[in-house]
Structure formats: C-alpha cells, structure tokens
C-alpha cells in the first residue's frame, strides 16, 4: 500500500470515529499517563509497510487484528461478567444480586451437571450432582426464582448451556414475558456450542447431526424474534482446559465455527443475518504474550474465513467478538493465593488482546466453588486493570512489538494449517467422529504435564518454591440435601400443573422433531406450561438418540 492510500484509509477511519464520538463520547475528554503525558487513541508506524492494512488495519475494520471497535476501551471497558451459580435458584439469585450491587455489569449463569445434560433434579443419574457445579434448573418455576427482582431488560445474561440450550433460552424468554419484557429487548448469550462438548467438555446429549439442527433452529428463531441475543458462543475455553495449546485452541475453535456457519448456510440461512450474532469464548492462559497474540491472530483468521470462504459482507459477520475466562487449569491447589497473581496476568493478556467481556477465576477454584470473598477479589482484579493500570487508554498497545506481531503471524499460520487438515477430513464433525481433535488435545495435555514434572515448565509453589502452606480460608460446600429439596419441589410442581397440557405440548414437540419444523416455538410452548427440562430432553432423546463417544485412549 502506498503512503497515500494509507493516509486515505486513516482519514476515512478518523471520520468514522468522529461520527461515533458525536453520538457516544469516550470515557474521558483527554487521556494522560500518571506523569501527565498525553495518550493518543491509536499508535501507528511512521511509515507503514505495504501489507500493514492487510495484516493489521485499523481498529473496528477488517481484518480486526487491532480490535473490533474503533475506539475500544476508550469508549467503554469490557463487560465484567463473573460466572456464578450454585445450589438452588434462590441461593444463586442472592449471589447475582450481590454481584450486580458490587458493580458487575452482566450476569453469567453456571448450571449444574444434571441441568447441562438435560436431566431433572430427581433423575437417578443426578444423585450427588444437584447444585454442585452450578444452579439446578428443572423447570420454568426454578428460572422464575433465579431471576426474581432482576430486570431482564436491564442486564445482559450469559448462560453456559449447550445441549439443552434451546430449553433454557425458552425459559429465559418465558420469564421475561412474565416480567413484561419482550424477547426483542433481551440481551445475552447462550453458549450453544455442542462441537466442543464432544471433543472437550463432555456434556453432550444428542448425536452431532440433530444437535446441529437444534442449533440452526435457534439461529433462525433468534434472527426473527430475539434479535439482540448472541445465539452461540463458540468456545475455545474448554478445548484449552482439556489440554490444547494456544494454536490448537484457535484452530479447533474456528474449525467448529466454520461447521456452524456451513450448517446454517445449508439450512438456508443468510450468513449476514446470523453471522453478526456469533460470538466466541477464549481461555487466557499463563504465557502472557502468546495469549495476546492468540486473540489478535484469531480475529484476523476468522475475518478472512468469513469474507473469503463464506462470502460474508456485513462487517459484523466478519468480526470475532469474544468473552474470555482466565485458565482454570492453570490454578494450583498448593499456595492458592498465588492464583490471584496468575489470574491478574491472564486477565491483563485478555485485555491487551481486546476482549469484549471477561471472567476472572477465583483463587480457590482448584479446591472448591469460590467463596464470596474470593469472587470479590477476582472481580476487583478486573476493576484494577480497567481503572488503574492505564492499559485501557490506548487501542491495542502491544501492536508493532516485533515479538507480538511475529507470534500473531505464527499462530495464525499454524492454526490455518490445522484447519486445512480438518477440512481434508471433511470438517470438524468428521474430525471429532474420527477422534482426531480429541487425540491432538490429549497429546498436548500429556506433554504439558510431563514438562511440569520434569521441571521444564515452572509452576510456582507446585514444582518450584514449594512450601507446606495449607489453604485456611472458608470453603463453599453444597450439601446433598439440596438434591432432596429439589426433588420434592419437582414432585409438587408435577402434581400442581396442567398435566394434560404438558402431554399435548410434548407430543407436538415430538412430532416436530421427527419432521423439519423449527423446534424453538414448540419448546417455548412446552416450557410455558411447566414441562420440565428432563421431560423436554427425553422427548428429543426419544427421536434423536444419544451420542456415544469414540474411545480415544
């Protein structure tokens, strides 16, 4: 690119920024360091290389390497969204209201394992699991309690739910209706990313093909009825937690994303209608600069894939907007207070990489569910980064670092090579069915463990600087009685509802599942008459069957 063309691009960008600022000013009239030195919105090379615009470009513009918004955190900080939920809906509701009161700006709901796998709290396989890793939700009644006194037109809510995502989203819509809030006003995200469940997280129900159909049904329904909702959060987080490298995290996540896009296109949807509602979820691990480069590489690679492969024209279809969570797998049970520092560095890498929302883990998560004190420290960590460290005052501050740019290029190239191999196998679904992705992740996990055990990789407090320090803080424990109480509540619900209506709605859902109608309206109908999560999922299990994982060890 000639200097003149670059100047022209910059002028256009500046004009766009001026227009944006007229509507929405930045957080401050002027930004300064503590010494009083002025901080510019954007720093650029004095003489950009020929490929500058192609590789880095300007913030808010293709290929989005430097961020998805033209003013990034000068306009507003990321959403501070702590993943929380445990025990009953009433207990979790209290925690949410506490977090909102502490300045958190979005909710993030953790569901327990029975809920995630579509079992009611009184199912035999739910014994011992109810309320343990998240909140137990079996029916609309639980959901009403969960969001009691939380105005759904004011908060955005992220729900980590995959296989039964359609059911939980339907419950959310139904709770909003009861609050007088229309679906068009709802903002939030359902994770709804089934492919990473098969390779990394294990809370699958149905086989891949019907799962992909449910997902495209959700895309289509939300495009018309819940337009502000993020219909999927394509997740590298769990791929990384399962042991992948940063390169594999980018590669497998984007490959999964491509499978969803292709499935939606095959279902007759327009890429520029559902594309803007795709969001992503990444892990922030401990190799600080590699992580920064990872986010930048992922943005650039996805932008190219959407534009070149899928013909997306809408800029919002081309950009990766992503949530980040610090790496749970990096936390140590020994010297757990060291985890506060780990989380802070990881969170900083996500911010320097341009995340749109962030969850910081609590120091005690290698031991138990986080306590209120440890959750508060985790949230404060984000606030310190956002308001005190100054890294939010200019866009993409590490751009132009020889090392960061080189890492960005290398991660992109290696991830692209993986995607090429997955393409050759017939895409993500086939690669998962063949066990390829699972095996690659397992090998990386084993290598990482061996590197720690040989001392090649240092983990402070675990394989170096080891002490006998014991964790002395409080632990949050969910009692087995929660399961019994939930089972009793369910029995009362089933006795008190209109069971004929429930049966009729489930029969309608079953018929639709056998055909090709969009399932969302039927699930919503079933939820409204208090059909339970387990009943709805059993109806679908009856038609679709259950997934059997291939053995990879």
């Amino acid at each position, binding site marked *: 690119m000639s200097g003149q063309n670059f100047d022209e691009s910059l002028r256009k960008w500046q004009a766009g920024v001026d227009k944006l600022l007229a509507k929405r000013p930045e957080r401050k009239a002027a930004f300064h360091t503590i010494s009083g030195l002025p901080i510019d919105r954007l720093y650029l090379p004095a003489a950009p290389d020929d490929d500058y615009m192609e590789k880095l470009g300007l913030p808010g513009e293709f290929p989005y390497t430097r961020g998805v918004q033209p003013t990034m955190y000068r306009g507003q900080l990321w959403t501070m969204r702590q993943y929380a939920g445990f025990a009953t809906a009433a207990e979790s509701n209290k925690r949410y209201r506490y977090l909102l009161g502490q300045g958190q700006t979005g909710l993030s709901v953790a569901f327990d*394992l029975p809920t995630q796998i579509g079992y009611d709290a009184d199912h035999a396989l739910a014994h011992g*699991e109810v309320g343990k890793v998240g909140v137990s939700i079996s029916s609309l009644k639980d959901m009403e309690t969960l969001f009691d006194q939380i105005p759904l037109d004011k908060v955005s809510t992220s729900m980590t739910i995959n296989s039964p995502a359609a059911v939980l989203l339907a419950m959310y819509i139904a709770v909003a209706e009861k609050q007088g809030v229309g679906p068009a006003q709802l903002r939030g995200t359902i994770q709804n990313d089934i492919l990473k469940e098969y390779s990394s997280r294990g809370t699958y129900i149905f086989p891949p093909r019907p799962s992909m159909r449910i997902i495209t049904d959700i895309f289509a329904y939300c495009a018309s009825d819940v337009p502000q909702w993020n219909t999927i959060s394509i997740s590298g987080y769990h791929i990384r937690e399962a042991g992948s490298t940063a390169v594999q995290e980018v590669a497998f996540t984007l490959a999964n994303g491509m499978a969803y896009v292709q499935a939606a296109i095959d279902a007759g949807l327009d890429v520029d209608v559902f594309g803007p509602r795709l969001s992503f979820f990444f892990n922030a691990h401990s190799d600080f600069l590699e992580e920064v480069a990872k986010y930048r590489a992922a943005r650039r690679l996805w932008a190219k894939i959407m534009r070149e492969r899928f013909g997306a024209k809408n800029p919002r279809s081309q950009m990766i907007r992503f949530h980040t969570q610090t790496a749970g797998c990096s936390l140590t049970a020994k010297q757990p207070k060291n985890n506060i520092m780990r989380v802070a560095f990881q969170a900083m890498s996500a911010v320097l990489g341009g995340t749109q929302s962030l969850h910081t883990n609590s120091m005690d998560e290698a031991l138990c569910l986080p306590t209120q004190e440890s959750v508060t420290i985790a949230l404060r960590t984000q606030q310190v980064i956002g308001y005190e460290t100054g890294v939010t005052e200019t866009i993409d501050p590490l751009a132009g670092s020889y090392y960061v740019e080189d890492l960005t290029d290398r991660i992109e190239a290696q991830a692209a090579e993986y995607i090429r191999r997955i393409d050759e196998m017939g895409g993500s679904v086939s690669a998962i069915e063949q066990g390829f992705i699972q095996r690659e992740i397992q090998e990386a996990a084993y290598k990482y463990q061996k590197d720690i055990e040989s001392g090649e990789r240092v983990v402070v407090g675990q394989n170096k600087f080891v002490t006998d320090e014991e964790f002395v803080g409080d632990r949050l*424990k969910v009692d087995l009685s929660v399961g019994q109480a939930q089972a009793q509540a369910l029995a009362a619900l089933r006795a008190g509802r209109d069971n004929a209506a429930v049966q009729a709605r489930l029969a309608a859902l079953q018929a639709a599942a056998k055909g090709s109608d969009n399932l969302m309206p039927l699930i919503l109908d079933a939820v409204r008459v208090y059909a339970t999560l387990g009943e709805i999922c059993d109806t679908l299990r009856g038609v679709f069957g259950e997934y059997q*994982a291939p053995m990879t060890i």
Partner: protein
Amino acid sequence: MRKIRVLAAKPGLDGHDRGIKVIAAALRDAGMEVIYTGLRQSPEQIVSAALQEDVDVVGLSVLSGAHDYLFPKIMELMRQKGLDDVLVIGGGIIPEEDVPAMKAVGVSAIFGPGANTGDIVKFIQENVKRRLN
C-alpha cells in the same frame, strides 16, 4: 510378572477427563494395562467393569463435587461383589477435609490437582493388593 491392570473410571456427570486421560497415559508408559470407562458411568457400571475386566486397581476421577455420594456408593457395591482385594484410588477436586471420609470407606489414596504422575505410579506399584506373579 504380569502387568498391573487398572480401570480408569469417570463416575458421575462431569465431562472433565483431562486428568484421568493424562494419568492413563502415564500408567501405560509405566508398563500397566489401562482400561478407560468413558464418561458418565454409574457406580453399578464401574463395579461391573472392574469385575469383568478383572482389574487390580480402580482409579476414580470426579471434579464436580459429587465424590461424597459416588465414592461411598462404589465402595459399598465393590464390597458386595467381593472386590475387597482391588486397590481403589481417587482424584479430582476433592477438598482436604473430605479425604478422611473417603479413606474411611476404603479409598486408599486421593491425588488432587498438582499430583505428580510418578507418585501415582509408585503408590500403585507399592500398594497393589493382588499377587502379580
């Protein structure tokens, strides 16, 4: 001397099998035979697999906090089936204060996050109850 046979088992609903897969690989590298159950196994399924596969060791992994229900249930079923000579070890996210209760029902050792796979191999080799020759 024959190889030590280990059943690597995932009871309960959590799908986090990174730890058990890493350990399975390490035990294999150390010369043991490892059979993995896959996810979401009920206590009944695990005990039946241990019986059928005639294993010397059962390694249980739970991260969800459901160990307080699942481990005692599995140990009770193993006793009923006469599997008293099978060494049982556990791992996952198991709080220190729960360890005595797990040992009281017959789980010989708990290896939490940060455990060294070499230590697990050594523990199994030194504590396996059945004769290997």
